[in-house]
């Protein structure tokens, strides 16, 4: 792969086209899944596809795959902070029912 002095590696257009096509297919899959009731799997499938699409965007369109090691580290830190937000919020949601509320 060629490298540009200022903008980093020059990614072949074919890669972008392939990623774009994959995103369109995954969007179609999300839409299709929305018409089928998968029960408890509804959210899992929708969020799973969304996560896959986000990963493609981050790796290829945002060039994280081609950067130095610091770049994936920064991305991982961002995701880790999201995990903090969700995990500590869940300490509330998962334990809120443990103690009865008077009158209920």
């Amino acid at each position, binding site marked *: 792969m060629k490298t540009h002095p200022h903008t980093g590696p020059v990614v072949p257009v074919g890669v972008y086209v392939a990623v774009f096509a994959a995103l369109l297919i995954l969007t179609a899959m999300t839409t299709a899944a929305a018409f089928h009731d998968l029960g408890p799997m509804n959210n899992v499938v929708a969020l799973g596809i969304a996560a896959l699409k986000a990963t493609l965007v981050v790796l290829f369109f945002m060039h994280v795959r081609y950067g130095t090691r610091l770049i994936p580290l920064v991305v991982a830190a961002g995701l880790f902070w999201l995990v903090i937000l969700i995990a500590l919020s869940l300490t*509330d949601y998962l*334990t809120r029912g443990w103690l009865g509320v008077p009158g209920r």
Partner: protein
Amino acid sequence: MVALPSETGIPPKVHYLNADYGIRSWLLTTDHKRIGILYLISITFFFAIGGLMAVLIRMELATPEGDLFQSDTYNRLFTMHGIMMIFFFLIPSIPAVLGNFLIPIMVGARDLAFPRLNLFSWYLFNIAGLFTIWALVHGGVDTGWTFYTPYSTRYSNTHVIATALGIFIAGFSSILTGLNFVVTIHRMRAPGLGWFRLPLFVWSLYATSLIFILGTPVLAITLLLLAAERVFGIGIFDPSLGGDPLLFQHLFWFYSHPAVYIMVLPAMGVVSEIVPAFARKKIFGYRFIAYASVALAVLGFLVWAHHMFVAGMSIYAATVFSALSMLVAVPSAVKVFNWTATLYQGSISWDTPMLYALGFIGLFTMGGLTGVMLATLGIDVHVHDTYFIIAHFHYIMVGGAIMGYLGGLHYWWPKITGKLYPRFWSRISAMVIFIGFNVTFFPQFILGYLGMPRRYHAYPPEFQVLNVMSSAGATILGVGYLIPLIYFIWSMRYGRHASSNPWGVVGLEWETTSPPPTENFETPPVVTRGPYEYSRSEEVADGR
């Protein structure tokens, strides 16, 4: 401080202030120093608006009856006071003014990594401010600065969306500033300037920038969700639409608690510069203070739900958050003890920046210790939503962040403008502010403990004495803030020229001229020693 022969000096012929003239040269500048001054002007304007709201609030509370304003008006006043002061003054204050000006100089660089992005963030900030002022002029907002749902999404008939949009845009300004600082500190340090030779001010702003980048997007998305619920009726937070109001509080405080550290960490950085400078001593425990800054930034993200103890959250989760909140006391105490240890056997001088720094240490300690009280579940339930809380966070934000900001402004003013301000009046103002602050806010601790709730325009008559004291203190505090405004403006025209190092201290910023040239240094600096080598301070003081 000892009168130094080098306090005054001859200014350089060409520096960043006179390198170019005209309004265009300011509005289109990419010089980080000029952008710092643009921010200084903007935030002073917003501070004046927020301050005016505070004046009106204290006027209303001088009597027990709600006689000056209707309760609806009063709701708008305290909301706009909070929004203006937090999002448009405190959060940008030290980072955007002093950080912008000093970080490139302190790391020995010519400018920030992205100068145009820096100017763009100033424009974003002002656009955001205009949105908010538009909302203010058209009737304001009455939700409190916290925008709690479902009131803000379903019931409030005020300009919630315009204000939220203003804060949303201001958030992008914060993110860009934080990004600029992180990249600059990582990539543009001068030769020889390793991480542990960085001034602690830079460390604290690095930690602050991490919060900007990691926290602000969550606030932005939360405000968008709020707008989606209010405009389109999408049920996210409103229980009658299937939402959960506590979800809003979780998301809001995930940013807004760390925002407290956005305000106070930079002030700690300023104090870490001032204390060794005016104690003429190497700072005690450099690495511990540096790590404590990062620890505060990280721990600040783990404690948010202590704002929600009485909101109906799980008592088990509350216990976890209570314990985590107390952990914050550890790095805070590390800093306070290390500053105190630096003072020990130092050659202390009582110059204006030092007065502010010492004020900070005392007031921050009081704010911090009452914070530990509030992290305790039992006490929090008792004093929640009372004036005890108001007093506590004003000790952190006014007694801490503003004292730090003013201390920093006084310390670096000769560098920024090349002019000296009157020593006598500056010392007087520091003392007036300290006294005015305590007379304003100490009675509020007692009021809160006795049970006076926050956010009401009327109160039982037995609380009047303490409220009158508080309002009187606010008047003193207001005078204290006006004095520096007057002599700073005076000094720009009539002040004596400052030498390149008027305090006789060490640091890269003191090795360039006052004011610095546009490119900061005539020759790119090479760093050969740590930041607080005061064993050589005598040479610095006497030799130049």
